[in-house]
């Protein structure tokens, strides 16, 4: 027996190396696994390399851009000053509205969930496989990032944390085919499901009845009903809405509000921000 094993040592080794992960993949499917000690060590080693390289590239880029920007700095400063005064006026108006909003909420005895501090993270890399569209950020478990947390920018939704380890986390982008988000059209309050198409640029607008009022250019925000994303965060604008001759639902596409291929910094929203812990238990990893 031992002689036989020794004789076929190489084919056996290659067979095991092929069959072991393949069987694991076919049985577990696309769900993935929790990071083990070795996975964590690999990520612990790779994240500083990514962060360092990103900082270096950004530093060179910023220096070049800074030099070019100096050329028109005076004109830009004047424009900025005038834009600032306009913004200041708008800010005052918004403060007034906020105060009014608080008064009205108090009158209605409305209680809000405790709001935790968002975690600011820097994108250090893109996942090196096109089968799963995700980004790596430089904040992880050590900073309070947990699997399932929503990730946004001031422009809109980016995605959802699918794995967090010590010093980094991976965020599944909205455009990944496994991503499905509950949205609502701001103009008509029509509900829709926004799904990734895998192409990196568009989302599919799904489960909207063909007789609903949906037009190109309509803004879609999160509905807050999926238990993952808070309500009212921008998802994107409707690019096309076709009504095929058959079927119940219209076929639509959406341009994401955030350019996901260029995103640099993101905000991770902690679970405490109006999201019950229980709502994240069913989040796929």
């Amino acid at each position, binding site marked *: 027996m031992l002689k036989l094993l020794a004789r076929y*040592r190489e084919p056996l080794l290659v067979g095991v190396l092929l069959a072991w992960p393949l069987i694991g993949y076919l049985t577990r499917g696309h769900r993935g696994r929790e990071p083990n000690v070795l996975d964590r060590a690999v990520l612990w080693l790779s994240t500083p390399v990514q962060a360092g390289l990103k900082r270096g590239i950004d530093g060179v880029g910023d220096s070049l851009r800074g030099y070019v920007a100096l050329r028109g700095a005076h004109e830009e400063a004047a424009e900025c000053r005038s834009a600032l005064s306009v913004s200041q006026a708008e800010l005052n108006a918004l403060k007034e509205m906020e105060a009014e909003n608080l008064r009205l909420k108090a009158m209605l005895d409305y209680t809000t969930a405790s709001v935790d501090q968002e975690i600011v993270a820097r994108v250090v890399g893109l996942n*090196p496989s096109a089968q799963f569209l995700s980004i790596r950020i430089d904040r992880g478990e050590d900073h309070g990032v947990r699997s399932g947390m929503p990730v946004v920018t001031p422009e809109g939704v980016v995605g959802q944390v699918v794995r967090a380890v010590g010093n980094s986390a*991976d965020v599944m982008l909205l455009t990944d*085919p*496994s991503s499905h988000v509950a949205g609502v059209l701001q103009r008509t309050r029509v509900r829709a499901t926004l799904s990734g198409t895998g192409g*990196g640029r568009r989302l599919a607008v799904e489960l909207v009845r063909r007789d609903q009022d949906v037009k190109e250019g309509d803004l879609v925000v999160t509905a807050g009903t999926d238990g993952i994303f808070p309500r009212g965060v921008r998802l994107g604008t409707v690019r096309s809405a076709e009504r095929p001759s058959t079927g119940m639902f219209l076929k639509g596409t959406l341009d994401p509000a955030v350019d996901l291929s260029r995103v640099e910094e993101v905000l991770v929203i902690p679970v405490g921000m109006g999201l019950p812990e229980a709502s994240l238990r069913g989040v796929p990893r």
Partner: protein
Amino acid sequence: MRFFGLAALALLLLSVESVLVQVFGFEVTRIDVGLALVVFAALRLRVTEGALSAFAVGYLLDVITGKPTGLYPALAVLAFLLVRAAALLLDGRGRVAYLAFTGVATVVHALLALLLTWLTSRDGIGHVVSLSGVPLQVVLTVLAGAVLWPLLRRFEVAERPTQGGLL
């Protein structure tokens, strides 16, 4: 020793790749640096260390993707076997042959990854769109292979493995 060297190089290259594709603003195009290493391992290393190196490269890619499933270690070993089988028919010793093998392997790897994802994932059909990035991916991977070739030759075994068979 070569196994550890190739694994360390793979980790470094995958980290660099993930930054570069983000800096370049690629959406579904990637640079298959890991595959360039697997092809080298298939063509220039002995079976045991070549297969182990291919598995290690696949494992590292699997972990760095963010959703380790076992797909990439399996595909890396499969690519190793396919390249080794093809090398029985075609001479893969020179740089040009290595780059040609790398280009073809990139296409086959992308198609196999898509097929297996489609078979096992509910949203598998959505991944078909990722194939749009493959032509540029082939070009970039071949370029990466050309850049890496002088470095990879340092990992080469002193005497060439015998061409007795696939394994």
